[in-house]
């Protein structure tokens, strides 16, 4: 980690502002582009640091987008974290806010209703696909059983989700999967 000049900070911030617009499906879809910028092009981070940032954000509670803050932090401390996180959040949040206002004012429009109806099955399919992709990253029967059990527990019971996560942590810590 090193101090960062104002010019470099602005450049980093500007890059992430632009990347924000491409983050359809979440910040993780533009991770390859961040990798190109921060590892390949500028050498701000090593490959290992980049991978660690994603792993850390997944281990910590909270939205996974926070891996972007870890990337900035590793590159240039708190100033770096501010550049990457604010950069990635600002455009998409303003868009979401505008969309929220726009659609709330037009709830009865046929186009808005058609959007909501048409997107509902896709929204649900995307959730299943996300779970599938996460599960497929780590093959093996024990993994699969744990994933399926968690899905059933969430679907059919009122077990607290932290209990499920704790079970997963214990099972994993003892090396049973």
């Amino acid at each position: 980690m090193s101090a960062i000049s104002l010019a470099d900070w602005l450049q980093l911030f500007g890059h992430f502002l632009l990347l924000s617009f491409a983050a359809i499906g979440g910040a993780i879809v533009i991770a390859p582009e961040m990798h190109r910028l921060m590892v390949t092009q500028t050498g701000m981070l090593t490959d290992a640091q980049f991978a660690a940032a994603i792993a850390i954000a997944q281990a910590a509670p909270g939205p996974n987008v926070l891996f972007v803050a870890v990337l900035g932090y590793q590159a240039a401390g708190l100033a770096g974290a501010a550049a990457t996180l604010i950069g990635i959040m600002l455009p998409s949040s303003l868009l979401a806010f505008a969309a929220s206002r726009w659609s709330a004012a037009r709830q009865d429009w046929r186009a808005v209703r058609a959007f909501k109806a048409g997107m509902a099955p896709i929204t649900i399919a995307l959730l299943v696909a996300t779970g599938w992709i996460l599960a497929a990253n780590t093959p093996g029967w024990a993994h699969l059983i744990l994933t399926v059990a968690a899905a059933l527990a969430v679907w059919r019971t009122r077990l607290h989700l932290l209990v499920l996560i704790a079970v997963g942590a214990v099972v994993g810590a003892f090396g049973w999967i």
Partner: protein
Amino acid sequence: MVEESQPLARPASVTELFTAFTALALQGFGGVLAIAQRVLCEDRRWLTREEFVEILAVGQVLPGPNVVNVSLMIGDRFFGWRGALAALAGMLSLPLVLVLVLAAIYAEFAQVPAVAGALKGMGAVAAGMIVGTALKLTPVLRVNPMGKPACIAIAAVGFACIALLRWPLLWLLPVLGLAACAFAWTRLSSEGVR
């Protein structure tokens, strides 16, 4: 199972919105969406499942983290821009501090086998939680104007393109999304919606 019959509630203040989203984010290991659905629709009853799916749909087609977009839109719905900011801040502030602390100590613990194993186990559970949440939301499709067979077909194609073919969402949304919305449009017209 789920008490859908209870009446809806709403947050009393911007502060409650902030603390609720903070609490929710801190429980979200491996993704916040599952716990968000549980807390917002079932525990606090701020939204119906239908409303949750609608807001999530908007959050998904827009750029940016889905769950952050969803928080912001829910905050806006109750308290305007102040609510949006409160929900956003709740979702990000404390988790940001935590993740930076973790980043500072990560190197020491990454090599411990028990830690690596625990993370793997948590990852497997988190994957299942997202699938379970999706299953819990499927009853929403019963009242969809496109009808059940069309909904199943659209969901199956969407799943296959993303999960099996690994298409980018940016390809899928303009094609399948537009087709589904256009079909929904025609069905709404046959229902007599202007």
